[in-house]
């Protein structure tokens, strides 16, 4: 979801001073892996017919998470789970209120009609990204069901949207930032201003 939360880490070696935001690691690499494994098992438990399930990650943060879930789920089910990405920029409701967003590739190389689509995002916050994703997905067909998996639910919803699978619920203040970093070192960080 939030681009702001995906900002790259501040340059290393900077001396922490009084004005630096205070940040806490809320999930380390092992905890992220455990959360994804649990989510994958919950997806498998909820959906008896594995052939109907497809994963769709929301750029940027949801795409690598969807790939990791695909790997774990494919091991559980012993089948390859179709996985795609869905950019929601063109369906957002705040396009004229800020600079135009960067549009990431949408790749859904399968038919979603009749399938159970599991949308995957890194952080669930206002819910507006998910609303846009529900609209955007409609343009590709009529899924039988849509479910939502997120690594972190930080609360503060603007819309009546709820995740089906949550890695970690994190109570936050509105002015805090949750950054999900995946790469050389996986971690989720809560930054206080």
């Amino acid at each position, binding site marked *: 979801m939030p681009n702001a939360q995906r900002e790259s880490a501040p340059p290393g070696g900077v001396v922490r001073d009084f004005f630096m935001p205070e940040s806490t690691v809320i999930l380390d690499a092992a905890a992220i892996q455990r959360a994804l494994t649990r989510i994958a098992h919950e997806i498998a438990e909820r959906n008896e017919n594995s052939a109907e399930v497809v994963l769709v990650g929301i750029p940027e943060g949801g795409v690598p998470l969807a790939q990791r879930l695909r790997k774990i789920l494919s091991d559980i089910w012993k089948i390859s789970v179709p996985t795609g990405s869905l950019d929601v920029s063109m369906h957002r409701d*705040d*396009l004229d209120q*800020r*600079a135009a967003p960067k*549009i990431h*590739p949408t790749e859904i190389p399968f038919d979603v009609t009749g399938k159970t689509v599991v949308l995957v995002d890194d952080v669930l916050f206002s819910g507006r990204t998910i609303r846009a994703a529900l609209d955007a997905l409609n343009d590709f067909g009529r899924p039988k069901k849509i479910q939502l998996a997120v690594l972190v639910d930080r609360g503060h919803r603007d819309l009546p949207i709820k995740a089906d699978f949550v890695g970690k619920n994190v109570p936050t203040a509105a002015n805090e930032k949750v950054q999900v970093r995946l790469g050389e070192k996986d971690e989720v960080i809560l930054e206080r201003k």
Partner: protein
Amino acid sequence: MSWNKKHLLDIESLTAEEITTVLDTAKAFKAVGERAIKKVPALRGKTVVNLFIEPSTRTRISFELAAQRLTADIVNFSADASSFKKGETLKDTAKNLEALNADFIIIRHSASGAPHFLSRVVNASVINAGDGAHEHPTQALLDAFTIRERKGKIAGLNVTILGDILYSRVARSNIWALTKLGAKVTLCGPSTLVPKTFEQMGCRVTHNVDEAIRDADIIHLLRIQHERQRKTMFPSIGEYTTLFGLNKARFAKTKPDALIMHPGPINRGVEIDSEIADCDRSLILEQVTNGLAVRMAVLFLLNGGKGPQEIL
């Protein structure tokens, strides 16, 4: 990724990064055009006015479809059926359009600088769809998009623009865009239509067509702009075709992977041989397809508000 402009008036004032932002965004919109449902709600509730004081078919239709695919409302306004004939000024016409809450005004005008003038007197976003012999920014953006898509890059390519450069806004916008993106641009045509002064824009000028197209990766042909020429610039169309037309003999001597572009409308048998226009190295119809994606991208980017790109 950077874009915080309200108007698209010319290529001259854009940075290479801004041009690349349009091309990257257009790539996403081209993909939308290939889906079963080709429409997205990005400009829902917005009003776009096509203010075409000079006739146009493909640019007007391209903008019209671009606005519709973004779910905007679009109104067409042409000089023939307008109050211009009754003596209304451009400013008054624009103010009237704004009173109808137009969010975007797309203007084509025979006077260079008309879009710039308009941008100073209205609150709407102004898009230049061609002003006199000055610029035609969306054409240059779609040409750059087409080249990048087919060649994978623009920097370092040899691009030859052949034809009536002097009266061509397409040429000027293309020269700005291509040189900013690092291409080596050669201009060629009759010396009356391709004066040496164009070298000041950072390109090479030659009047020898065989030499101009020999090393070209892209050969961009332009139509003779009879409507803008106030005097005879060359003896006859027949002589122009003989000396500068892209015929089969000349085409055979180009690089085997050289591609042919033309902004249209083409005059078959004048600047381009009919068979060459239809061959598999001609990008003329791809340019039209890409034009739609580029114009959607431009409307999408200009629709963005001020402030940070941050999504919360």
